[in-house]
């Protein structure tokens, strides 16, 4: 497990990270969201050791992270970067070896990834002659080539069209084994909601929300939605719930006492046709807005 504890970073007067702590659990994708300048990239760079923390530490399986362990991590920086004038196959083999692979293994992995990404025929092309989308594919291959023990991806999908995003997500799912923790930051909340198991929300250098996406989206109280054939005004008299809104046959209510929603459903069925009943999911963007307000 990858965890950060009490991470703080100052740039002069400015506090970029303020006592940030969270865990990235193996086999789960953790989404890292926050407005521009919230401190996501700073935190990721500290995890990868390219920036020093003012205070706090990064741990791997409860021990302080060392250079040797970090060498097995895969990293995709926000500002993309590979050698523009190097052939892509040579480049991926080089990065594989840089992360400690044997030359043969590095070549094997490179060929597999290039095949998988549909870039096999372009293996001997120089990176800068590829389209931006293909360069991005090579970039993610560079993070995956050494079968990383953990993945840190800074905005991995920015600039990709929806089809390319899907292809990339498939590749990640295929490549990332259950023991690998994955942390990725994104602005695209719908994507994060679709892909992530856990979420860390950062605002002005502080963690304002963290936990499984399902729990965060559900909120602290459960909200239900009921649609009946007829008027739903009777709900206002039911004990143990708080009605948020009634408009004709459609109603939204919060459950205050445990399991009271079941008796509400029974009453509704007794009164007539029930068209719709179930918990109302809050969109992640609302959670995000709420948390970072």
């Amino acid at each position: 497990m990858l965890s950060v504890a009490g991470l703080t970073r100052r740039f002069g007067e400015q506090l970029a990270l303020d006592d940030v702590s969270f865990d990235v659990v193996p086999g789960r994708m953790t989404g890292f969201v926050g407005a521009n300048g919230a401190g996501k990239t700073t935190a990721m760079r500290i995890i990868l050791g390219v920036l020093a923390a003012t205070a706090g530490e990064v741990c791997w399986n409860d021990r302080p992270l060392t250079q040797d362990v970090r060498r097995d991590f895969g990293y995709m920086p926000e500002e993309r970067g590979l050698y523009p004038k190097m052939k892509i196959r040579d480049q991926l083999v080089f990065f594989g070896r840089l992360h400690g692979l044997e030359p043969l293994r590095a070549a094997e992995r490179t060929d597999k990834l290039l095949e998988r990404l549909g870039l096999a025929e372009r293996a001997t092309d120089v990176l800068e002659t590829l389209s931006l989308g293909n360069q991005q594919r090579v970039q993610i291959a560079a993070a995956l080539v050494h079968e990383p023990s953990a993945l840190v991806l800074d905005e991995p999908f920015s600039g990709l069209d929806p089809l390319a995003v899907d292809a990339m997500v498939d590749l990640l799912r295929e490549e990332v084994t259950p023991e690998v923790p994955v942390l990725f930051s994104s602005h695209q909340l719908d994507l994060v909601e679709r892909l992530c198991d856990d979420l860390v929300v950062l605002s002005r250098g502080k963690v304002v929300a963290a936990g499984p996406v399902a729990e965060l989206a559900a909120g602290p109280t459960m909200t239900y939605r009921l649609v009946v054939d007829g008027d739903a005004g009777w709900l206002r008299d039911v004990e143990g719930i708080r009605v948020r809104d009634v408009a004709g046959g459609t109603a939204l209510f919060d459950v205050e006492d445990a399991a009271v929603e079941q008796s509400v459903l029974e009453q509704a069925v007794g009164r007539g046709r029930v068209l719709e009943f179930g918990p109302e999911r809050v969109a992640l963007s609302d959670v995000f807005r709420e948390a970072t307000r």
Partner: protein
Amino acid sequence: MNDRTLDRPWVLIAEREISTKLRDKTFIGSTAVMLLLVLVAVIVPALLAGSGGPDKIAVVDDAGAKIVQQARHDDGFEAVRTADRASASALVAEGEVKAALLPGDDGYVVLGKDRVDSGLEGALREAAATLGMETNAARAGLSPSELHAGTSVKLELLKPGPLPDIVADFVNIGLALVFYMTALGFGMMIAQSVVQEKESRVVEILAAAVPIRSLLWGKVLGNTALALGQIVVIAGASMVGLAATDQLAILSVIAPVAGWFVVFFVLGFVALAGLWAVAGSLATRQEDLGSTTLPGQMILMIPFFFSVFAGSSAKTVASFVPIASSMAMPGRMLTEKVPVWQPLLAIAILLAATVLIIRLGARLYERTLLQTGRRLSYREALRA
């Protein structure tokens, strides 16, 4: 998960550095041009000097022919008999002969076209005078040996140099120039390759995977190996050129110094390479290199002019100053007899300086490599 090898990452960095350069057409091209220039410099003078054979001198009588045969000169003279003055001066005018030796009012006249080589003139003058005086002496009853008794002059040198002055100077400048150009050329390439990694941001991935010091070491070692390879190829070619054109005297002096030169070269180059890498890491774009590499250029240029043009005592001092010693000490060893403790001491000083410079360089490199915001000054890097 995998067979993770704990190989030294700087070997990998050095490998990449070398294989990239060896595929770079500009690098291969410039090496070829340098090789060609050196070969031309070695071979052409030998061909020009050797092409003449004995100089031809036109004469009109037996006395003249005798003087020409007596005259001592590099390759000797060959007398060409002509019928009279007119045909002799015609040969001079056509360039068939170097000069004509004609009887004059009181002795001889050396007739040339537009100019006469002073060595040639002197040799003829001396031979004419000797023969004339021997004839005069014979009339007065003196034999030639009596005439010449006590007049011979021999040359002795207090500090005989291994090579004639001009050749020594030439070789000295050549060696200093080879160091200067190689160090400058490779230095700029190192700075450029660092700033390219910063510009393309690939440095972020490199720094996440391996310690920044390994990046520096890999770069320095890769480029040192390349530079040394280039020097060895050029030196080898010039030695083959010297041997092929029979300039064995020069070769026998250069060959023993060549080993020393390699040691001085490698140490001086490594120290500078550390500075050039820092020059690259201070910059954020190629355009910044002009100002960040200025100190490096100065550190090379000043000792270069010093070791080539300074007087002999200044050169002696320079031959112990780190970096300058890489150019001055091999130069001194070519032009004068240097006791062996001197180059050894110079190497010890250079080695200590190289270690210090590389350490300082590594620290500055670590501080500045990941700063991609704007160009930094040396002062900021030292303070940070």
